[in-house]
């Protein structure tokens, strides 16, 4: 699988990354290289192999349904460029 400039532009847009036009072609080449490298894995027959989800067999850790966190709204908004009454304030977004 290889990617062209159009695919790079689209991926960048979805990730909200500003990629200058003159970087599109080199990035496409780089990404295609990475994909080709990973594609080597397809040479292995994994027909009867269960997908691995962790190196050691582990069970998803669970928490009890108890409120143990929160109630520090000042800290939550502390790094925000703008806040008011502990709300985050961002440029108007309206659908």
């Amino acid at each position: 699988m290889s990617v062209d400039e159009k695919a790079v532009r689209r991926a960048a847009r979805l990730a909200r990354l500003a990629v200058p036009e003159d970087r599109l072609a080199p990035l496409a080449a780089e990404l295609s290289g990475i994909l080709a490298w990973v594609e080597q894995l397809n040479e292995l027959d994994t027909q009867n192999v269960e997908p691995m989800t962790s190196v050691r067999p582990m069970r998803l850790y669970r928490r009890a349904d108890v409120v143990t966190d929160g109630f520090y709204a000042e800290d939550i908004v502390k790094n925000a460029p703008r806040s008011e009454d502990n709300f985050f304030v961002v440029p108007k977004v309206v659908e």
Partner: protein
Amino acid sequence: MSESKMRGKLIEGVTGSWEVVIGLEVHAQVLSNAKLFSGASAAYGGAPNSHVSLVDAGMPGMLPVINEYCVEQAVRTGLGLNAQINKVSVFDRKNYFYPDLPQGYQISQFKQPIVGEGVVVVDLPGGESVEVGIERLHLEQDAGKSLHDQDPNATFVDLNRSGVALMEIVSRPDMRSSEEAAAYLKKLRAIVRYLGTCDGNMDEGSMRADVNVSVRRPGAALGTRCEIKNVNSMRFVAQAIEYEARRQIDVLEGGGSIHQETRLFDNKAGVTRPMRSKEEAHDYRYFPDPDLLPLEFDDAFIARIKATLPELPDAKKARFVSEYGLSPYDAGVLVAEREIAAYFEAAAKGRDAKAVANWVTGDLFAALNRDGKPIGESPVSADALGEMVGLIGDGTISGRIAKDVFVIMYETGERPAKIVEERGLRQVTDTGAISAAVDEVIASNPAKVEELAKKPKLIGWFVGEVMKKTQGKANPQAVNEALKAKLGHLLGE
């Protein structure tokens, strides 16, 4: 008609009739103390950003840890929907950018949801019922809340809801009218409320629906659908479908075609409008969340939850019909809310259950509806209503007087026996007293007596007069009998 099993109603267009096809995606907030992946409170409201942990705020380095009770609630709901429970499910990241989504993705379940196919039996207003298939139920995080009306140039963001557990319940496109869709939503709400897995409070957004609507010629292949987002009341769901179906028919009959799109329902204007959507809105680039292992549990876990299931609406309805001899319709009305069913059963204990059902669905519902009160706030307790039905049953009061007693009970909250005693409403069954009243009426109305020979229907007037004389307390049957005994010869009996 018989072949394609047509049901619901067709909509008439200019060029013939159309069938509307509806599927619902319902978001139901899980009833839990804490959020799906953090220890912050899941309670509604709260000061801005107070129910927020560093996980919910998407701070770097934070890891999600699943709330086991939310998993249990999803399984419980799945069991209530007669659905397949998947012992292995996977959490995925659904990627998109919005200010109230601090992580930049929502943790959801895409390919392997926790609950698979199920079925819901939906009771229609006419007494019929239809089955609506459930495609899946998955667990996911809610996003935060954006407030657009606080400032002309800014949006305020509160993350209290961010990370709260939601169940998305996806139906099959099995509904054929707005009534069926509203009835399905009502049934779903009843089931989750019985189960205690969601409070079903649509005003607070605990339950909201995305409605998929398409139209087709009866029996034809499915048409292109439009999705109406975030409709938050049963009435709006019905209105949005009515509007959208008509809109699509008009477009198609005008020679146009339907483009798959997302629309919003404007409940003030009663119309749906296309969202001003970004072209790439639907590329969520789902992938398994590397912070979370697959969710696995065993049969014992499911069995343990199964053992805690309450009697659900369908089973309760069947029992009300067989145990109390109620009509399926009355039983359906009584089981619609768990609290109403409990009220009925408490009142019917040892009483004439059919009579109790009539009082609950009749006078009590009328009074509560008028005052906008839920059954939990009824001034007439279940026990008091049962006592009143008992007083009718043993002949202490007549059904007519009971209507007045009920009004007094509702207004004062007093026990019926006390009201009857203090206000002297006890029914007069004493034949001597009734007989005397009948004699009096006959003696003072000789003209009417004469007329009666020609107009037998006039006997009703005599009943009325006797009842008046006894302030309505006379047993109507005893009055009839006494009148017949004394005037029967005039009626040719």
